[in-house]
């Protein structure tokens, strides 16, 4: 299984949003199976994910996934990458479960009938055939999260980007989703501010104010991160909240 995961290259990539540099000259090569991106609120994690996914272009430098530019070559990006957004309500676009699930398939070239059949199969294999016609607004938060994951998996991407996939979910749901993630054969890039989520990663990047400040195995990066967070947390007078 060596070298079967997509090769993601960032070369000196800089992103400026609203006149402010949010990511600074990032250069990394990612090809591990389980990659974690760790950092505080506002450190640039979501921006990093949007950059990888080709939803924004770098203002300087370049991004390449197996050689293609995900911002310009949307077809390759869509075929290869799936994204689970931080908030399922920012991801769901359709009023019913079936429409939501079939959309990506049709965009990728399937006929509507073929897509519907595929959706039915997928729902059946998860024991949720009765969901097909259900309005998404009647699903609970955890159920909507699950729906988004199903929509991503249906597209069979080679790489899945997860933005705070467990935030706001209760503990049993977290446990189950974690197991589900662990069983996926794909390359997973997980964004989080909680080091506990990344114990099983192959590689962890720690972002701070738009820069990679540490990069290595969890056994090296996580303890350093935890110690630093504890140190900042103990300081009084929220110095860096003062912005």
């Amino acid at each position: 299984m060596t070298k079967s995961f997509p090769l993601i290259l960032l070369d000196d990539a800089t992103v400026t949003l609203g006149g402010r540099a949010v990511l600074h000259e990032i250069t990394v090569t990612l090809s591990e199976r389980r990659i974690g991106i760790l950092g505080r609120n506002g450190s640039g994690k979501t921006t990093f994910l949007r950059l990888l996914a080709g939803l924004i272009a770098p203002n300087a430098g370049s991004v390449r996934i197996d050689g293609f530019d995900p911002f310009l070559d949307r077809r390759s990006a869509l075929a290869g990458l799936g994204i689970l957004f931080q908030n399922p309500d920012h991801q769901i676009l359709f009023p019913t479960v079936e429409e939501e699930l079939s959309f990506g398939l049709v965009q990728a070239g399937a006929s509507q009938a073929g897509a519907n059949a595929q959706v039915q199969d997928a729902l059946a294999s998860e024991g949720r055939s009765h969901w097909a016609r259900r309005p998404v607004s009647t699903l609970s938060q955890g159920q909507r999260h699950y729906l988004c994951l199903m929509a991503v998996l249906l597209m069979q991407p080679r790489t899945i980007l997860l933005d705070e996939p467990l935030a706001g979910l209760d503990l049993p749901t977290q446990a189950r989703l974690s197991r589900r993630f662990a069983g996926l054969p794909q390359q997973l890039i997980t964004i989080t501010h909680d080091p506990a989520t990344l114990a099983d990663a192959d590689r962890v990047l720690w972002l701070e104010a738009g820069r990679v400040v540490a990069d290595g195995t969890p056994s090296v990066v996580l303890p350093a991160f935890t110690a630093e967070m504890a140190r900042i947390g103990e300081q009084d007078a929220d110095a860096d909240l003062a912005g």
Partner: protein
Amino acid sequence: MLTLTSPVETWAHRIPAGWKLLALAAATTGLFTLTFLPALTAVLAAGVVLCLSGGRTFALAALRLLWPLWPFIAVILVWHLWTRDLTGGTVILLRLVTAVALANFVTMTTRLSDMITVLQWLAAPLAPLGLPPRRLALAVALVIRFIPVMLDRLTQITESWSARSPRRPRWRVLVPATLAALDDADHAAEALRARGGAG
């Protein structure tokens, strides 16, 4: 989302939407050229028969859909009693009530998805101007998805206001509500791009 399509299946549900719309267009055009009272009455009677053909429940639902017209009927009657031109008034009323009833009949017997297919067909000539039929269908789905989302948001905004003020927010919910619509639009645009684009 609730639609106005009647859950009571009638024979008219099985007629293709395109034909019903064509017939409606012809009937409405005809109606507005008619001024002969007995002819108008005959058309109205035909409309009533049409509604009754769907059964009691269906006909009552059709009647309910005409209810919002009552103030208009009242004002026309008063006006024409005043000007002593009751025949003129009756012609206007018959024409309008019949036209609305026929249009409602088509709406009640046509599923939303069929109607949208006709819309896409009608909009097909606009494709070169940047409106491919698929994009229209996508826009329709987005509206239906986001109406309940915005209603939820409105509740949250109202509660946030009520948690800090004894007065009702009234029009002031508009600013945060419009803001939420703009932010949701930005998020949905990104999700759309992440999942295959606007077609």
